[in-house]
């Protein structure tokens, strides 16, 4: 498989976990660019074309809340996890732990 193929699979894998990462991160209020930066600083490079529309979609699904504030003479939209998001997050986290554990077990079979 060529590099482009591997990159596509890698991108799809990241897309799968980005919701969980964002919900975890937004337990503290953040604005769009700071979410992107914090994800990158913690080792999860996400395409900005994926992240910013995703924040809006999660808000429309009721998992996030947002408000506009003017800081440093510039309006910024701040996102934070909603009460519904707080209910959903532990379930998603549990699901993620189960997936990681299952993939580790499966990878042991192949060795």
């Amino acid at each position: 498989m060529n590099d482009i193929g591997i990159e596509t699979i890698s991108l799809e894998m990241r897309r799968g976990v980005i919701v969980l990462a964002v919900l975890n991160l937004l337990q503290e209020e953040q604005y769009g660019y700071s979410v992107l930066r914090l994800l990158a600083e913690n080792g999860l490079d996400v395409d900005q074309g994926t992240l910013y529309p995703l924040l809006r979609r999660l808000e429309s699904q009721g998992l996030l809340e947002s408000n506009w504030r003017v800081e440093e003479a510039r309006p910024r939209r701040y996102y934070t996890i909603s009460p519904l998001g707080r209910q959903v997050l532990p379930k998603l986290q549990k699901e993620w732990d189960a997936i990681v554990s299952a993939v580790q077990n499966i990878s042991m079979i192949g060795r």
Partner: protein
Amino acid sequence: MELLDKYIAQVGENLPRKDREDILKEIRSILEDTLESRSQAEGHPLDEKMVVSVLKEFGSPSKVAASYLPPRYLIGPRLYPTFIMLTKIILGIVLLVGIVTLSVSLFQQTLTIETGIEFILKKVLEIIGSLLSVFGNIVFVFACIEWALSLAKPEDEQTWDPTSLKNETDIDTVKPLSQVPDIVLTIFSLIVLNLFGHQIGAYFNDAAGQPVFIPALSAEFFRYLPLINLIWVLGLVLSIALIRAGKWQPWTRWFKIGLDALSITLLVSMVSGRSIVTDAADKLMAMGPTGSQIAGIYTGVGYGMKALLIVLIIVTAIDAVQGIIQMVKRK
């Protein structure tokens, strides 16, 4: 920052009016944050080169706008196989009719090589025009169905029970895709008969060798056309109602029975009345021996159509009786 303003304005051109202002405000805020961060990282004030680099990373305005929109299809994956199948069938019929008409016309004309080439080229262009026009109509109809299906209530995955599969063959269940061929063929027939009905026919040479157009459908047929249109439009309404509900309901069953009764009334009146195929015997007889042969073909087609209408009466009556039996079973 003029470049940034132009970029944001172009993103806005590709966004729906409803959310445009809010999305653009957010994109501007994000871009300004990104530029500020880049300026700090590179240790020098913001310049145009930096703006160009950041905008290139963000992507073209149309790509950025598309990422904020839900996936939209003119003809989506659900309908695409049916679209391809029906397109092949309908365009195949149009092409076949075009080739037969061209062959008959060629046989009838006395042509030199030059006029023959000119005549064939003209006819081929007409066939290509018809194919493109029909293809456009099919795409339009499917796009309307795609839109209607997008409004239909999706199947509820939470309440779906695998044991209900045995009821899937239930006489009341209607699969949305099962209605699509009906809808497409009805709309196609409505367009053809209402817009091109008078142009269905063929050219024949008269005694002087001049081409004369003999229409296939008689004036009698066009007297029935408003009622045919009404029945087909009501049929479309029924198909759309069935797609939306996903099943037969008492009112749709009665509606179908009523529609069948109306269709039978129309068909009986068409069978007992004058022929719906043109009676051009006088015109054709004047063309000599070939004309009288063609007149015979027209009369034969007229009888054939009456036979076909009788078959349709029987099929529609069976359909209506089945509908009544199913209503009785339900009770």
